């Protein structure tokens, strides 16, 4: 029975590769823009004024606390009634960028707050401006805490990108659903879907491990 389906599945491989490309395009774009926005929000969240901090905080809570599917639906189906009409692809990228920015904001803010406050005080005492403090004292140290979870987060976001298939973006997961209609062996079809995600995610995970090893000196063994 598996042989019967396997030939069929191999026939659909080009379709799967198209889906792979779509996943890479949506998540790649969103991760790049999301990282930039996330860093800006994160820095504001860790330092900025109180009102700015609670607005960003509330937004992050809202995005982290609700299903991504609902966010995608709001951007794609409900914003048009406010006059903002978007195609599926840009809507997907906007939704995922926002999600990425929110998660990255938390990681960045956490990293900045983990820098001992003495460092900052010393910098102030040495007469460094707020920008100089951030640029030369705080961020370089915070990056050590930020980098490993940041790359780990990328992996999660690549996988979250599968949700955008609900608004008609034909990504890997969507291709899986379309194929399973014709080749009704869920295990095999989604096995292939899993392998394709693995192809994207595994290098990222290795990168994250590498970064972590380079940034920690001791290797703990229990």
């Amino acid at each position: 029975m598996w042989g019967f389906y396997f030939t069929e599945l191999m026939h659909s491989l080009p379709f799967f590769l198209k889906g792979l490309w779509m996943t890479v395009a949506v998540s790649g774009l969103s991760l790049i823009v999301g990282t930039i926005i996330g860093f800006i929000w994160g820095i504001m969240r860790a330092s900025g004024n109180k009102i700015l901090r609670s607005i960003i905080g509330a937004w992050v809570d809202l995005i982290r606390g609700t299903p991504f599917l609902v966010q995608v639906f709001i951007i794609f189906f409900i914003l048009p009634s406010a006059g903002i009409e978007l195609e599926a692809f840009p809507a997907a990228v906007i939704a995922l960028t926002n999600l990425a920015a929110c998660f990255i904001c938390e990681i960045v803010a956490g990293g900045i707050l983990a820098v001992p406050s003495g460092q900052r005080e010393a910098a102030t005492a040495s007469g460094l401006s707020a920008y100089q403090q951030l640029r030369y004292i705080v961020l370089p140290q915070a990056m050590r805490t930020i980098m490993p979870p940041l790359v780990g987060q990328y992996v999660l976001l690549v996988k979250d990108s599968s949700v955008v298939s609900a608004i008609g973006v034909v990504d890997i997961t969507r291709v899986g659903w379309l194929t399973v209609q014709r080749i009704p062996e869920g295990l095999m079809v989604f096995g292939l879907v899993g392998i394709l995600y693995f192809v994207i995610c595994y290098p990222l995970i290795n990168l994250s491990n590498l970064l972590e090893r380079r940034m920690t000196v001791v290797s703990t063994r229990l």
Partner: protein
Amino acid sequence: MKKGKVFTILVSLAIFFSFLGIASAGTLDEIAQRGELRIAVQTQGAPFSFVDRNGKRTGSSIELCELIAKEMGVKIKFLNYDWDGLIPALLSKKADMLAADMTPTLKRAMKIAFTEPYMYTGSVVFVKQDSPIKSLEDVKKSGTKLAVLLGSTGENDAKKAFPEAELKTYKGGGPLLINAVLGGHTDAGVNDGSAVTGQSASFPPNSIRILEGQLSRSPLAFAVRYDSPDLLSWLNLFFLHVSLDGRLEENLNYWVNSLDWKKDH
């Protein structure tokens, strides 16, 4: 600290509900001006709407839509969603109409306008080839596990016909029901008869057996928004024409009433 948290929650809720907005209308004129008919479809499986082995979207509903666009003299654009996205797509005017093998229930018709039905079908019960279940009577036993599709007529029919049975609701298309039955997750499945026949064709021959008798007779129809009465009456006229000139019958005979399509797709 406490106050800050309450404030945060309030801001979240305010942002959430500020998405409640206002909108305008869409008609046949709009379609003609645009030169493009936008149709929301789902890919629920053969023979209505599926992607064939060449990666091409096809099926009974799809060909009907292509005929509609041809008669309108406009291009066609298929917007492909899953079940969750279908209704929002129509209501938010992303799509002019909805073409899925959807049952026009009275509750649903409170929200969207259905065309005259273009065909009738009925739910059937299917089991594994070697299942001890022989007739619909056997299914009525309490504790029988039934696989149904979320939001399908089969789901409603199963609830009514087999109140003692345990329903397991799946999503993602008819073939998954057959999978659930073959995988032993349920004893039987309930779905639209033509869908079961069409979809069982992609399984090894004689995997499943359809029990004799239909649970219901239900219409299938396309749908539009209530603010497009012009499109609605045009579609009804379209169905009248194609059923008079035999093109509807040709479509249904090829896709639904036989497995002729299997050769080509």
